[in-house]
């Protein structure tokens, strides 16, 4: 009996300890928040279709980009792949019957929902206008928005990430099937393992920093406000100590997804498996040492800036190793362009562009010109949307047969993937040019000569929105009318494909035993 047929009542879902059901709960919750954040983005792009600030008040615009950032970062991107696909797949991929701490796993979802309620309350109470970065002393002394509510939501949701991370790490360490050595683990597991390390080591720093923001705002006793004897740079250091590694929380799992999809649809073992695993660990470790590149113009020491610049360039090396190895995996492969593959290939290209423009920003001299312009916006959207969201969707399509037991309609899948790729580039490529021309971020009006590029960007946003709505429609349709999925529709390797679709409650009929490494694909001649 499949895990979906174990019970149909709402109660059976809300009290489940099954990692697969918890993953589905997460999927529903983060999808809801994705469309909240997306609605805010739509309004932002509508406002920027004309140079004059005519659609919303400046204060409203500030609240729009704040809620877009807060929701997309903490309520969609960070939990997206680890808490949905990671939760569903890591126990399956290591041949375990469940996560190591199933009740903690369910608790993490409830904590997420509680944090989400605070964010919804922030919206209902009138929003918050600090930007997702909550920079002091504006957030602690001057903002009239609902800073405390918003900060409480982010504080709470952090603990849901920590619990998921803890669970994944212990599961990978302790519950691997017989014969499944570390270097036989799929790269998706490696990526989620490294991500989990970042989750448990970086998230608490943000939590405490936000506590200090709340203390300063409530008691007017300052550690960040210079008027009270504090130091605003201290906030920026602490904030980015979390928030830069957070970028790798978002993109490392995406790399894991791409590393599963590309070998499968190229029918080739992934090129340089060990280096791929080492590169994941290298990115996760070096990622902790580069936060100062967000502060080149903040007044931090010049020498600190130079060291952070150098370390930021260093992160490009393992990232490039991964891009080269995905490309080399394709070489002489028998490639089929199924929808997941289109997403994965789109990811490789967009991640490369996003990564390369990151090098512009890591160079201190160039960064002085580009700081706080649309160039930065375009750069991190290429990583977070072009990287993480593309792979999240690619992964959802790839494992949809496993999750739902149904096949999605392939032609619709391909059409949506292409539409999203096109819409994404139309939205964000013009923003590189706008930034280079000097258009600053976070303004609701701009000079008329920049309108053409902004109109392109806004038109792209419409295409992108359409692209994101499509999967919601046809994936929902497939739940009822889709073809029943066989256990392994893609002839993929990996333990998750050796059990039924959808899997039974405890994943496997018999505990699997592993005799070989991952990606044992035979090239089709």
């Amino acid at each position, binding site marked *: 009996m499949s895990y979906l047929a174990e019970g149909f009542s709402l109660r059976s879902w809300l009290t489940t300890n099954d990692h697969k059901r918890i993953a589905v709960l997460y999927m529903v919750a983060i999808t809801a928040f994705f469309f909240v954040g997306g609605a805010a983005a739509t309004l932002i792009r509508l406002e920027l279709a004309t140079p004059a600030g005519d659609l919303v008040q400046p204060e409203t615009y500030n609240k729009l980009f704040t809620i877009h950032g807060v929701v997309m970062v903490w309520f969609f991107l960070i939990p997206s792949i680890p808490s949905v696909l990671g939760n569903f797949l890591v126990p399956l991929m290591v041949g375990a019957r469940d*996560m190591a*701490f199933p009740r903690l796993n369910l608790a993490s979802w409830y904590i997420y929902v509680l944090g989400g309620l605070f964010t919804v309350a922030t919206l209902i109470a009138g929003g918050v206008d600090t930007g997702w970065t909550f920079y002091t002393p504006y957030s602690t002394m001057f903002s009239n928005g609902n800073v405390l509510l918003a900060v409480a939501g982010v504080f709470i949701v952090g603990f849901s990430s920590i619990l998921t991370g803890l669970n994944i*790490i212990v599961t990978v360490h302790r519950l691997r099937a017989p014969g499944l050595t570390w270097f036989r683990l799929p790269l998706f597991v490696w990526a989620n393992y490294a991500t989990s390390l970042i989750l*448990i080591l970086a998230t*608490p720093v943000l939590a*405490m920093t936000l506590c*200090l923001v709340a*203390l300063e705002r409530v008691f007017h006793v300052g550690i960040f406000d210079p008027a009270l004897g504090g130091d605003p740079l201290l906030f920026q*250091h602490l904030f980015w100590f979390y928030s830069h590694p957070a970028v790798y929380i978002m993109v490392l799992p995406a790399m894991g997804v791409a590393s599963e999809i590309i070998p499968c649809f190229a029918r080739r073992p992934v090129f340089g498996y060990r280096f791929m695993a080492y590169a994941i660990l290298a990115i996760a470790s070096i990622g902790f040492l580069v936060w100062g590149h967000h502060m080149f113009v903040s007044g931090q020491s010049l020498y600190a800036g130079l060291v952070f610049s150098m370390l930021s360039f260093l992160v490009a090396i393992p990232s490039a190793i991964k891009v080269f190895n995905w490309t080399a995996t394709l070489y002489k492969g028998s490639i089929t362009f199924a929808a997941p593959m289109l997403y994965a290939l789109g990811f490789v290209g967009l991640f490369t562009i996003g990564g390369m423009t990151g090098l512009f920003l890591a160079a201190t001299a160039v960064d002085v010109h580009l700081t706080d312009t649309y160039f930065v916006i375009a750069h991190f959207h290429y990583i977070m949307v072009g990287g993480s969201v593309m792979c999240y969707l690619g992964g959802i399509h790839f494992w949809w047969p496993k999750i739902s037991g149904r096949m999605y309609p392939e032609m619709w899948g391909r059409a949506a993937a292409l539409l999203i790729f096109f819409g994404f580039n139309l939205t964000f490529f013009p923003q590189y040019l706008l930034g280079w021309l000097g258009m600053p971020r976070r303004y609701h009006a701009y000079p008329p000569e920049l309108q053409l590029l902004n109109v392109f960007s806004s038109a792209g946003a419409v295409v992108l929105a359409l692209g994101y709505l499509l999967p919601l429609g046809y994936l929902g349709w497939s739940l009822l009318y889709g073809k029943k999925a066989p256990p392994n529709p893609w002839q993929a390797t990996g333990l998750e494909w050796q059990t039924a679709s959808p899997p039974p409650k405890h994943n496997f009929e018999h505990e699997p035993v592993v005799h070989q490494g991952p990606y044992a694909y035979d090239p089709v001649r």
Partner: protein
Amino acid sequence: MPTTQFDSILERREAAMLGMWLFLATEVLFFGPLFFGYFHSRLASHDAFVAGSHHMHFWLGTINTAVLLTSSFTMALAVQVAQDRGRFLRLLLLASAALGIAFLCIKGYEYASEIPEVARAEGPEQVFYLLYFAMTGLHAIHLTIGAVLVIWTAFISARRAIRVEVLGLYWHFVDAVWLFLYPMFYLLERYSA
């Protein structure tokens, strides 16, 4: 109790211990910004911090350090006899919890006596007190949670052995935090100037 995910008690124990170690890693980083903030602010406003440490109640802090270290001793003994399930284990657990509560009472008295001084503080000295209350307060919250869990564990029997070991790790961590807080607030440069 569902035990679907583990093959054996040993596997469960190893998972629980690893889980607690990882949680403690999270805890270290949770305290991290406060420690970083302390050293950053101390370098920036050195004189205010020296003045602040002269206002601390040295003897209360020192007595509390002794109380807490003794509680760690009884907790370490409890972990040693965790397999026995005897009355001795319950006694040791309750002794640890009692010492923890004694610490909290002394700390509460200390806080109450400090309020008039804190109300007079200004500028960077306020930062000192903010950090003092935030750090010792967070430590006290951790100790309270620890005491509740220890008392709870003392009166339940199922799978107590693993629980005592895991709780022991947590208890020692909370004590170790105090071993940093005590010199930072009570001792540093108190007698040098």
